């Protein structure tokens, strides 16, 4: 199986950035809330004499310090976001935490000095400036580590939800391709006069296709069912394209009962027609070859395409990305879709693990 240029087909979604945008209001809000929680926890933490009670003054002073640290750290991370992201998640996160700890150290020293100079004597503890600076920076660093992890996980989660929602919507749109519907109707309108029997069969095929596409049963389908659907789809395209479309099937050795998400392969065949056969005045052969190697089912859909220097159509890339995502959701890492765009041909290889 050739695996030449894959340049046109990068992974569908960027991984979620590990450092959020601290200047964004919701993130800033979350940061301040965390700072406030930390202050409460620290003040309420049981000391040697049991649960500590604290004065309003202590609370205000602690909050002041915490807000100052949180805001300055957020501002700094916001300004340094691009370079930090460029450095990479591991070293970048270490650096970010170090920065937060340094900011905390600086600010707590400043607050200590202010408190001392103004003689408010709220924050000043008997054990001196060193202890306070150390404690503040350690605590800030730890909380920052927790916060970064929290933001990262949340970002990833929301990206995943988005991908899922988008792929569902794409799948729905792919099922009801209006262009295909109206082209088929046009073909049938023409056939009614020329060949009524053929027109009748086309109506039956189209109905089966749309029954499947409109998803009376939303769950998974069988590989055999999907192949049958592709046969019906191709029967309609055959009417439209006539001798320009030839199909080379080799799928007899595939496990018919394998469960797959519905319409996982048909859009790839549709692409082969739209961007391959239909774009060639003389047409060509769509090859659909499937084999089982070990515990992996491999299906290759290959078509000729015009030798032009122009880019891949975006609609094609879109469909490929969408199917890749659906394979990933359904089969995890052992499933794959590889697109191979070469000079004058295009091939998609789908790999699905047997259960």
């Amino acid at each position, binding site marked *: 199986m050739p695996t030449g240029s894959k340049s046109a087909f990068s992974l569908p979604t960027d991984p979620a950035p590990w450092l959020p945008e601290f200047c964004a209001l919701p993130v800033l809000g979350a940061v301040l809330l965390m700072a406030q929680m930390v202050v409460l926890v620290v003040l309420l933490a049981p000391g040697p004499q049991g649960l500590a009670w604290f004065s309003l003054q202590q609370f205000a002073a602690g909050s002041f310090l915490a807000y100052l640290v949180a805001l300055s750290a957020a501002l700094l991370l916001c300004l340094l976001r691009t370079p930090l992201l460029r450095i990479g998640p591991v070293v970048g996160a270490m650096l970010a935490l170090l920065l937060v700890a340094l900011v905390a150290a600086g600010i707590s020293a400043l607050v200590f000095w202010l408190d001392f100079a103004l003689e408010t004597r709220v924050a000043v503890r008997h054990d001196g400036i060193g202890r306070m600076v150390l404690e503040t920076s350690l605590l800030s660093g730890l909380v920052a580590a927790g916060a970064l992890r929290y933001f990262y996980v949340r970002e990833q989660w929301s990206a995943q939800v988005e991908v899922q929602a988008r792929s569902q919507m794409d799948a729905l749109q792919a099922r009801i391709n*209006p*262009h295909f*519907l*109206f*082209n088929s*109707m*046009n*073909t049938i*309108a*023409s*056939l009614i*006069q*020329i060949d009524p029997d053929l027109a009748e069969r086309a109506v039956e095929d189209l109905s089966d296709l749309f029954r499947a596409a409109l998803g009376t049963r939303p769950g998974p389908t069988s590989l055999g069912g999907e192949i049958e659907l592709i046969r019906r789809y191709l029967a309609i395209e055959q*009417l*439209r*394209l*006539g001798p320009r479309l030839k199909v080379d099937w080799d799928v007899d050795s595939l496990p018919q009962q394998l469960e797959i998400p519905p319409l996982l392969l048909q859009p790839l065949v549709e692409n082969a027609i739209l961007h391959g056969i*239909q*774009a*060639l*005045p003389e047409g060509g052969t769509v090859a659909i070859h499937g084999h089982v190697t070990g515990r992996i089912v491999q299906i290759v859909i290959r078509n000729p395409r*015009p*030798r*032009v*220097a*122009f880019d891949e159509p975006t609609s094609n890339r879109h469909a490929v990305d969408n199917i890749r995502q659906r394979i990933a959701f359904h089969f995890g890492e052992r499933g794959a879709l590889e697109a191979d765009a070469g000079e004058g041909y295009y091939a998609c290889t789908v790999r699905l693990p047997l259960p």
Partner: protein
Amino acid sequence: MKVLIADDEHLARARLRTLLEALPDIEVVGEASDGRDAVLKAQSLGAETLLLDIRMPVMDGLEAAQHIATLDPQPAVIFCTAYDQYAVSAFEAQALDYLVKPIRRERLIEALSRARRFVKPAQIEQTRETLDGDRRRTHLCARLRGNLHLVPVNEISHLQAEDKYVVVNYPGGAVLVEDTLKSLEAEFPDLFVRIHRNCLVARDRIRALKRQPDGGVVAELERVEGELEVSRRNLPGLRKLVKKL
């Protein structure tokens, strides 16, 4: 009225022909199966109105219409499309005539009776850009002894400015087009590279750069006889490109 049908689907053409032949004063002068075919037949058969499918191989219906709009006398063009809400709104924005498939007899009669004859190439160019995000043509349109001649862009080896025209060199010979080098360079930045104030060459055709005894540099192109002068100004960029190739 002489009508030409252009659609790559045999059955779609058959249906249009049946509809058209039932109408009085309509003569179907021919059928074309792709955009390029449509342009050439529109000219040779003297079609007055074209029914142009949008999605066709070799050259799509919109680009075909762009070339057809330069014919004199200019035929009227009615676009046919299976369904595309974007296409329909783009056509309306540029006041282009269109029909949606499956085409109804009444709509066809109506469209034929008011088909607009004076569509400007720019209107179609604008529509193409709206629909495809791309206004690059697949063919350049030249006039050869009064006849329209279409040169596939990917066959062109080099383009040379000469007076008011640009000479298009390709394996089939050399023809003149009315575009400027500057506009061609802007339209196909990924296909051609400038080697001289008056010359663009196909990037993938450059075989070698050679230094001449007099210190000047010339470029050799694949399947092209002779050498082309490279200007001092374009040399550094060209060297980088050749290294990448």
